[in-house]
């Protein structure tokens, strides 16, 4: 267990006395603003709920250690204790008596230095830079120089952490509701002096941390489809923590592109004892500046811990000459945003990754972010048709046609005759080809057919219950084409340079610029009426769905950009499909495309899990990445059946052989004649299997020794065997590299 249980009865009285003697009212800080002073004066002296006589016992501490903790908030489910010097918290889950601690009691043989001890125990760690030098240092709440005051205000407790040495103070607001603890850091309550600049903060980094082999359990990381890091499997080859910005890289900050999956959900989970105790942290506000950090035992400390780091200022490389030389600089302006972080505590059957996914799902539903968009009669395959793409000629370019409008109709009807009712996306419709302009959908390339023809095909197909989407992208503009105002429409980075980049091909190159979100929105609104006229739905590409850049030209930071992105489809009733979208896009999403079917396989991850799938199953239909590029189609199909995802394909009428030297070089196998039989077969397999759970939710998922069992709330179990030999499970035989469906009881 997490905490050594040593109860010394004599300590009770001592603890009680000590608590009574504690000064409970904060001294108003003179340097605070008037308004703040006023607010503070209104505060009723905190009615401290004196800890029950067995505080020490409850928290599993020595009485003298327990003295420092104060019971600040309590409801039916949780009790919140806060350490009066370090702001370390202990959350008692009353249902299980399990204590979640952000600090640790160190034994003598713990090999850890005092600096780390301070960082672990301090409820807040502030990283700051000297305004003159760029060297960063940490400020923690330890017993020297720093003060913490706790005040109760209604249902909230407000902690004021002051660091006089660096002239910085924060207010942290705690509140409880049901099984959740909310922690807020309001932006207008952060004070900083002239000399020291705050770069980032960590809040309760070690909440729920575990000794390397203290308990069975794992950390849940929403990388890709989701992954867990099981405790006790320390690997010497892991030398760095996992660090990933929520919503991926920020080109406004010149972040280097990462080839791992970007985090689309601001969440991480901790399971300490599978099916006993779990918690997860979720960023309600400030997620665009949150970075998830996961440290397995053995990397920085001997503990497994995970936390969000909240950035206020970031370092960036300021290039001063063309040869690439320059220096590392720090943002001068502090990003202004509120932080709201919610810790939810789960127990028993919910204390696992499926439980965390479900609780997160209910959070999203209650926030109005997640809706049921499933159709009664869903399609089990998604086809992306490529219309036209550019092709380099001796001089200039021409549009190479791959699938005309009538080809699309013909192919879809041909499939329909074989019993395949797909959802259809048509991309690359722009005059000149898909990459002629990367920020426009219209006008339509004449060789493909006319707009009127497209309209007829769309309505004809939609009458047959085949939804049609038009592929669109509003993330980048080609700067070597007209129609872009560099100064007002392209993202300006922190170093005042425009975010442009050039991609080289054989005998030509293309210069792109990342569009500001308002420019994206304007382009979308230009096209909106035409989408409506055509009666077509819209599928947004991955870049539009995932990229989130701060823009130093308009001064819009990443949080404000989120608000803009949310607007994008808010006013429209057309169906929208997104490729691998971020959380703020979920509210307007009808289909989820390119859903990751695995994690980025960081070495610290011990198993991939269907976390994202569990969140969406039963709400939104989701499709796996196109199978054309798959290296192992057989494995991918099994994975889809395990994860409840439907297949998607990219389809062209013509051979894609001329695409190798174009921006669509990732399409190297798409010709319908070649894929027809595969599409029909895969569709039949997926439909016959997943139809039974089309509207069900995943309630349990187990993967052991390459045999997976996914359980749905309608009682259906799907067994997937990845082994090369047949497997026995629950009295059934599952053939090698195959699957088996067991119907529910009722």
């Amino acid at each position, binding site marked *: 267990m997490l905490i050594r249980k040593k109860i010394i009865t004599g300590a009770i009285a001592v603890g009680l006395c000590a608590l009574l003697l504690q000064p409970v009212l904060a001294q108003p800080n003179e340097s605070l603003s008037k308004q703040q002073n006023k607010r503070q004066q209104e505060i009723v002296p905190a009615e401290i709920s004196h800890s029950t006589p067995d505080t020490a016992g409850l928290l599993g501490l020595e009485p003298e250690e327990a003295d420092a903790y104060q019971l600040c908030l309590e409801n039916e489910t949780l009790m919140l204790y806060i350490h009066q010097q370090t702001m370390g918290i202990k959350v008692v889950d009353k249902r299980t008596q399990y204590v979640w601690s952000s600090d640790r009691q160190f034994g003598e043989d713990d090999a850890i230095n005092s600096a780390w001890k301070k960082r672990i125990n301090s409820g807040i760690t502030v990283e700051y830079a000297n305004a003159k030098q760029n060297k960063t240092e940490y400020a923690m709440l330890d017993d020297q120089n720093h003060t913490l005051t706790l005040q109760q205000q209604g249902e909230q407790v407000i902690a004021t952490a002051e660091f006089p040495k660096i002239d910085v103070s924060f207010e942290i607001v705690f509140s409880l509701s049901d099984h959740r603890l909310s922690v807020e850091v309001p932006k207008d309550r952060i004070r900083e002096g002239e000399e020291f600049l705050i770069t980032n903060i960590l809040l309760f980094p070690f909440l729920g941390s575990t000794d390397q082999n203290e308990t069975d359990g794992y950390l849940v990381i929403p990388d890709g489809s989701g992954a867990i890091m099981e405790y006790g499997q320390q690997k010497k*080859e892991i030398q760095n923590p996992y660090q990933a910005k929520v919503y991926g890289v920020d080109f406004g900050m010149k972040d280097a592109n990462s080839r791992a999956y970007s985090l689309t959900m601001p969440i991480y989970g901790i399971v300490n004892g599978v099916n006993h105790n779990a918690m997860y942290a979720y960023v309600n506000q400030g997620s665009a500046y949150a970075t998830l950090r996961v440290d397995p035992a053995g990397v920085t400390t001997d503990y497994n811990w995970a936390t969000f780091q909240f950035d206020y200022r970031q370092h960036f490389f300021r290039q001063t000459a063309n040869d690439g030389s320059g220096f590392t600089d720090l943002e001068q302006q502090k990003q202004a945003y509120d932080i709201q972080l919610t810790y939810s505590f789960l127990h028993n059957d919910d204390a696992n990754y499926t439980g965390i996914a479900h609780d997160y799902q209910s959070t999203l539903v209650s926030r109005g972010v997640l809706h049921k968009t499933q159709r009664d009669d869903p399609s089990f395959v998604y086809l992306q048709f490529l219309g036209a793409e550019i092709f380099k000629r001796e001089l200039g370019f021409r549009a190479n046609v791959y699938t005309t409008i009538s080809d699309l109709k013909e192919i879809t009807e041909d499939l329909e005759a074989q019993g395949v009712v797909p959802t259809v996306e048509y991309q690359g419709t722009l005059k000149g080809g898909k990459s002629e302009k990367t920020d426009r959908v219209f006008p339509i390339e004449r060789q493909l057919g006319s707009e009127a023809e497209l309209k007829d095909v769309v309505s004809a197909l939609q009458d047959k219950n085949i939804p049609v989407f038009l592929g669109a992208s509003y993330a980048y503009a080609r700067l070597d084409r007209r129609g872009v105002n560099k100064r007002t429409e392209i993202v300006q980075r922190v170093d005042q340079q425009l975010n442009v*980049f050039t*991609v080289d091909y054989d005998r030509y190159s293309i210069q792109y610029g990342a569009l500001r979100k308002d420019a994206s929105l304007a382009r979308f609104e230009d096209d909106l009426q035409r989408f409506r006229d055509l009666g077509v739905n819209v599928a947004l590409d991955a870049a539009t769905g995932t990229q989130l850049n701060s823009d130093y030209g308009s001064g819009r930071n990443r949080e404000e950009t989120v608000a803009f992105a949310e607007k994008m489809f808010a006013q429209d009733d057309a169906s929208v499909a997104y490729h691998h979208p971020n959380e703020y896009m979920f509210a307007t999403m009808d289909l989820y495309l390119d859903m990751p079917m695995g994690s980025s396989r960081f070495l610290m991850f011990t198993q991939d899990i269907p976390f994202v799938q569990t969140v969406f199953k039963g709400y939104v239909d989701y499709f796996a990445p196109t199978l054309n590029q798959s290296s192992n189609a057989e494995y991918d199909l099994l994975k889809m059946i395990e994860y409840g995802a439907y297949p998607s394909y990219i389809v062209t009428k013509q051979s894609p052989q001329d695409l190798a030297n174009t921006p669509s070089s990732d399409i190297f196998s798409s010709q319908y004649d070649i894929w027809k039989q595969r599409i029909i077969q895969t569709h039949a397999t997926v439909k016959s299997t997943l139809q039974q759970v089309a509207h069900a939710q995943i309630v349990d998922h187990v993967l052991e020794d390459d045999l997976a069992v996914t359980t749905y709330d309608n009682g259906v179990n799907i067994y997937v065997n990845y082994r090369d030999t047949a497997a026995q499970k629950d009295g059934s035989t599952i053939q090698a590299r195959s699957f088996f469906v067991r119907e529910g009881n009722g």
Partner: protein
Amino acid sequence: MNKIRLFVLSILLLGLFSSSVTVHAQSTPYDSFTPVAGRDYLAQLQNLYEPVNMFSQHIEKPEDIFYFKDRLYVADSGAQAILVYDTKGNFITTIGADFLSAPMGVFVSSDFIYVADYQNEICYKLSHSGTIVQEYVRPDTPLFGSKEPYKPMKVSVNQSGDLYIISEGSTNGIIQINERGEFLGYFGVNSTSLSFRDMMQRMLGGQEKRSQLFAVKPPSPENISIDDQGLVYTITNNTAESERIKKLSIAGKNVLDIGWAAEGLTDITVDAMGNMFVVSELGILSIYDSFGHLLGNMMVNDTAERLGVFQQASGICADQNRRLYITDKTNATITILETTEIANHMFEGVSLYKEGLYLQSMDIWNEVLALNVNFSLAHQALGKAYYKQQDYAAARESFRRSADIKGYSDAFWELRNDWLTSNLTSLFALLVLLLVIKRVLRHLDRKRGIYDPVRRIWHRYKATRVYDQLRTPFYMLRHPIDAIEYIKRSGKISYAAFLSMFAAYLISAVLSEYVRGFVFTGNVTNQVNIVVILLTTAIPVLAFVFSNYLVSTITDGEGTFKQVITGYMAALSPIYLFALPLSLLTNVLTLNESFIFQFGTFFLTLWFFCNLFFTIKDIHNYSVQETVKNLLLTVFGMVILLLVIFITYVLFDQVIQFVVNFR
């Protein structure tokens, strides 16, 4: 292949955009490419391998890995032993922990385990239980060389028990020692190469540098492998691309011609079919077939601690299922990679292809092409299969797509042959008919003058100034001396003549490139780079004329600038009048008749040089000797001129960059 390298490099450096705007995140941190035959770019490919697992138990600093009968033998210089694992990565035993100091290379045969120990300076022959059978120490024969180092890094052994040892800094080649420990000689020494830059540096440098001018030592090989037939494979860094991977015959001659190889190679392994797997330090995994065709390239595109990312790949081996095991020296791990669907098809196809079973491999290659339309070897194999089936049209198309000029030419020869046999009679009939018509027309002309209107127009045209300007090249063809005289004395020539000839020259240059037959270009795309052609044709002409004019004015040449420039263009007339027809002709030629094209080109060039010589001589009124001198000076002047332009450009570029940066 230079462009491919640049492309690869840019991908590696940027790590940003794989050539499409959207970065597709993947579970596998690789970008895979296959070369597209006849084109200057690589096409994307599904991964041929996917990392499936990784193990690190007891591993500290793995240097080399060897697979033998379901066991992996790892030479670990950190653990100072040979570590033995099963193919799942379960640790089995340690060998030689009590006497090995720095094992760098390991080789296992059915009877023995061979270990190269760098620090002990010994190659050990051990029994499978780990006892020392024999120690191969530094050979003491004079043949070995008294100062040659003996620091064994890698070892391979052929079936008769001869050892091939790579020693650190063994620039003489691979040390070959027989079973009894007798030095047999050096094997497969690398060739030296001196870059132009090095040569310049040494020539211009001081006495010391100059003495080293040709004292270059060949690079020593990095690693070694040996196949069942006893052929030795080596990899070498810091050398020309084609020399980096070698397959050495028994005589020590390289029998491969590698088109592309990565830099910083660390290990090579060869499977039973002779396919080669080469890994570089940065984790570029290249797979070649036994002929040296690059099948695919997998490049690590991430630096994060993910499965499949290497910090310092040091060794590679393949088991009988072609599963790969790659050691990482810095991470102290061994990653297991498994073949993917397309790779399984590919290897099956390559095996059949190697044995010449083209027809049997057709289904497999079609499957490969279904998965990736850009896979060149599949097109080539299919071409050979179609050729065998006598489907020459299909064969020709497949050969075109795989840029197999020989195959294309053969298929075309067959097609042309078929066409000729079926159409020869009609051709003759047509020829006879044409002759008859010509006769009849001439007869009618004599009787009734039906050509008179044409003649009148011709005479009227002859009197115009346009004729004066346009006639020069044709005049030059028939009467070069008269034509030069005409340019010099008639006074009728203007710049319009130059412009018309210059335009004809440029158009002809572009068109003849464009219409040239595939056999003579190997240009799969049927595309030409107009800008490059224009620049490469126009710049030498203008530079020559300009330089010649300047040189002549100070060497008593009589010619004016106008005369020089029109004279030069007139001298070029055989080229721009006949190159295009010659190019058109190549469309019906095969490799068998390539001499026609080569001779034609040679003849036209010779004709041009003769013309040029007389033009310069007569226009400037030089003697033969003076003309030669003038021509040499002109060429020298051209070089200087281009150099000056280049330097000016560089300087101005600096100024512009300065101003831009100053902002």
